[in-house]
Structures are given as structure tokens and as C-alpha cells.
């Protein structure tokens, strides 16, 4: 039984996208990747569920 929620949860998905894009505005690809890595760790800890984390990793690896 999957636990990862992939349905949209933001009331305003565009605002969430803008927050993410503005965070990387002016950054190089490498600097943005480093930011993303830190974000992944922060959000993974916030979720605090190893099953969800593993499902999220599988989805990310599967989406090309």
C-alpha cells in the first residue's frame, strides 16, 4: 500500500513553484543542485517516514 501522496496538495501550486524557482534565481547549475540536496534532506527529515522517503526516491528515479 503506497504511502506517498502524489495528488496536488498546495492550494496554489503556482505559488509553490515560484518559491522554488526564486530560490535558485541567479544560481549556477551546481549551486542549485547543492541547494536541492539540502532541501531534500530538510524535507525528508520533516516527513520523518522511511517508507515515504523510499517511495519518493523511486518515483524521482523513475521519472525521466
Amino acid at each position, binding site marked *: 500500500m503506497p504511502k506517498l501522496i502524489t495528488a496536488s496538495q498546495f492550494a496554489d501550486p*503556482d505559488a509553490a513553484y515560484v518559491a522554488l524557482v526564486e530560490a*535558485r*534565481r541567479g544560481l549556477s*547549475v551546481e549551486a542549485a543542485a547543492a541547494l536541492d540536496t539540502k532541501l531534500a534532506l530538510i524535507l525528508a527529515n520533516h516527513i520523518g517516514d522511511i517508507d515515504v522517503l523510499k517511495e519518493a526516491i523511486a518515483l524521482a528515479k523513475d521519472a525521466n
Partner: protein
Amino acid sequence: MTNAAGHKSIYHYSYRRSADQDTVARRPVIIVGAGPVGLAASIDLASRDVPVVLIDDADRIGEGSRGICWSKRTLEIFDRLGVGEKLVAQGVTWKIGKLFRGDDLVFSFDLLPEDGHKMPAFINLQQFRVEKALVDRALELDLVDLRWKNRLMCIEQHNDHVRLTIDTPDGPYVLEADWLIAADGARSTARELLGLSFSGVTFEDKFLIADIRMAADFPTERRFWFAPTFHNGQSALMHRQPDNVWRIDLQLGPDADVTEEQKPERVTARLKRMLGDRPFELEWISIYRFNCRRLERFLHGRVVFVGDAAHQVSPFGARGANSGIQDAENLAWKLAAVIKGEAGAGLIASYESERMQAADENIAHSTRSTDFIAPHSDAERALRDAVLALAPKAEFARRMINSGRLSVATVYESALSTPDEDSFAGSARLGAPLPDCRIQHAGGSGYMLAALPDAFTVLMFKNGAATQSAPEGIRTITVGAALTDPDGMLAQRLDATPGATYLLRPDHHLCARWRSFDRDKIAAARDRALGKS
């Protein structure tokens, strides 16, 4: 902005000398710019018994296709002005948008999933056809004095009027007006004459916009591709127009050579990659860089800016011409009330605050869309591409794909609205236009918005109590009496219970509502909506 390819103009009009050229006359309202916005404002004011002089420096309409997507709210306004049904009949009706990643469909959206609206989500129709219909309508009205080949040269501002110098084939003349409406477009002369700065963001990417004539049975939908194989990693947009004309937008990137890219052989080669061997003819080509910007104020003494003269957006979302028409409708009833001495001092200022809210909303949406379509850097592109890669597998990512959020009416957070004291569900929103729906009345089956007068109106749901009369100057429609709600659709959209009472402004925006009829509260809410408190 560049617009190199010429296009035949379709409708010609002629300059006629006015008696005003022999004297210095004073008019209540002069509008500069006979585009869709200036024409809509003229017709709306004239229908409210305000005489208008409408001047334009040209003597023709019909160059290029320009605006093509007319939104439901705009069509509702056009319907009130007497041209809505005609335009819907001429246009191509659509409501479905489809998004492709590469060549694969990832998401489709329906812009009007519910039933019971007179006007469709959108029609596509060439701007010159809309202008032609509006000119025809304006010419039927004695109160619109349309003057072609009248070019604004000078604006002198006074406390209670403006003094204009206008050039004509017979030489210049002076004309005074209590109010000047500047509807003279993105390159507004009025804005330049007042020395106003027009600041914002210019996007680096260039876009090719082409109208082509082609017999094809593609669906009547808005189709948008991110990185399709036919266009080398950039985006593409396709829309159907009437008469086998199709609008195609192709992203060219920031480094595109404007002269090279406009050569017909170059454009034809790009389009062939998209369309295959299907024969087509080029109707109109142009290359744009988009701007999102607005004036800091829309009101400058007795000069009021509307449409592109006041604000500009990128085309993704069809928020340019549509917001201009909504500016015109917002201003018309207010200016009419001021001129007739019915309004308080705050009413004209509310044009600025309400339509600035709308402009900011439009600019924000259009900026977000343009950022998504044309990322600023490789790092931003990586995020965008990650959203697209996740989209086939995750709904949250599909919701983030932004190819343009299409124009809807603004819900005004306005001092003109009386805050709700009771709670209401339903799709009706305080500060928004009343949702349309099917009704029955003396004329048979009809629609709610078309049944409303152009004045303050109270809509009251019958509850068995004796009918009370609304305060003077307000029309009352009792739902359940001469007008009925056969499907219960109106009651549902307004969350109406017996006795529920709704006050509508002359532009059909909801400005107050209660669970029961109270004459004093209605009078106070109307005064508030007239800027008197």
C-alpha cells in the same frame, strides 16, 4: 516589439470635419484610441446617457490579427453592450487546453466544466473582427461621436478639465473635456505627453507569432507543447481561429535574429517541421519580446488610463485585451455616476484600486507563465524540466505546469463591497461578477446576466413574506416571482435560502448580500458602492 510583416487593412473609415474644429467646445468625456477598449468604453458610457467623443489617429482597422482569445467575462460585457451574440456566432468556441511534453499529452484542462452559462469559456476571433463589430455598434449610438484621423498632440491639465490639441487633415483644433480616457494602447501618446514612466520586466526570449491559412481538422483546443520534436527543445502554441486561420506561437530563444527569423522562407521551414506536408499560406508574421509592466497610477487628475496604455502583459493567459475590456466596464458606470452627480468622491479612486488589483494579478500570472515557458537560466530550466518529467506520474507536478493561466474575472477586494455579516457558500464571491445561470422569465427561457439591468439591482429570493420595495434608484428582481430558477442552479451558485438578498453593482459585480431583506442595509450598501462612505 517588432512587427515587420505588413498586412492589408480590412475596414476603412473616413475623416469628417466636426463643428468643434471652429470653436473651443467642452465635452464631458473624450476617449483617445478606437481599439477594443476605447470602443467598449464609448458604447458603455453612451448606453448610460453620457455623450462621448472618441478620437483615433488612423482611419482604418484590420492590421494583423493580434488579440484572438476573448474570455467569458469579456463576452458577458460584450453581450451587455449588444455585440456578444454576434461575436460568439463569428468566433470559434473552445474550453479545452492540452499540454504536451515532447510529443506526448501530459495534461488537459477544461476551463468551463459547469453548465448553464450563456457565454462560453473562450472564443477565438481576430481582433479586427471584434473592432468592426464594436465600431458598427458605436455608429448606431447618437451619443458616440467617432472621429477618425484625429491625432492627440497636446494635453493641458486643469483642476476640473483637460484641454487637448488635436491634429486633423484640416489642421489642429482645441477641444476641452471634463474627463479624458486614455485607451491609446501599449505605445500610448497620452502616457508620453504626461511624461509617465511605464516600468516592469522585459523578457529576453523572442517569440515568433504567425497566423496561417490552412485546411486542417485539428481539434478546436488550445494546444501547448514543451520541447516538441518539431521545434528543437523550445515551446509551441497552437490556436484555431475562424476561416481556416490558425495562430502559432514558437519560442525562438533570446539570441534569435529578428530580421532572419521573419523571412517567409525561414518561417515556412519552421512551420513545415510542425505541420508536415499540409499546404498553408502565411497571413501575418511578427516577432515579439514580451513585457510585463504597468503605470504606477492609472488616475492622473482628469486623465484615466485603461487597457494597454495602463498595463501590459505577455500573451500567455489572454490577459491583455480581456483585462482592458474589464477596465472599460469598471470605469464606465463609475464615470457616468460621477458625471451625473450621483457618486461620492471615492468612486473614481476605486477604479484605480480595483483595476490595479486586477493588473497586478494579471502581471503576476503572466510573469509566472513566462518564467515557466522561458526559464532564465540552466538552473531554473532544471527545475522546470523536473516538473515536466514528474508530470506523467504525479498529479502535483501536472498542476505546476504553467503554459498560461487563462484570464478570469478579478474578485475585487474593494472598499465598495459591504463585508459579509452572514456566511455564504456557493460559487458566487463578494466582489466578483454574479455567476451566470439559466432562468425562466416573461421572455421564456433565458440567462441571469442577460436579465439584469445596467443599474444597481437587488436580487431577492422569495420567502412568502410581503414584497418590500428597495430604496429609490434600485431595481428589485424577486426570484420565484416573474423570474424563476427552474433548475435551482441560481440558488445553488448563490447559496440562497428563502429571503436571501443580493445587491449587484451596475457592472453586475456582487457588492453585498444578506440572509434577509433589510431596506436600510441595502441603501447603506448602495451608498458605499457609490463611494459615498
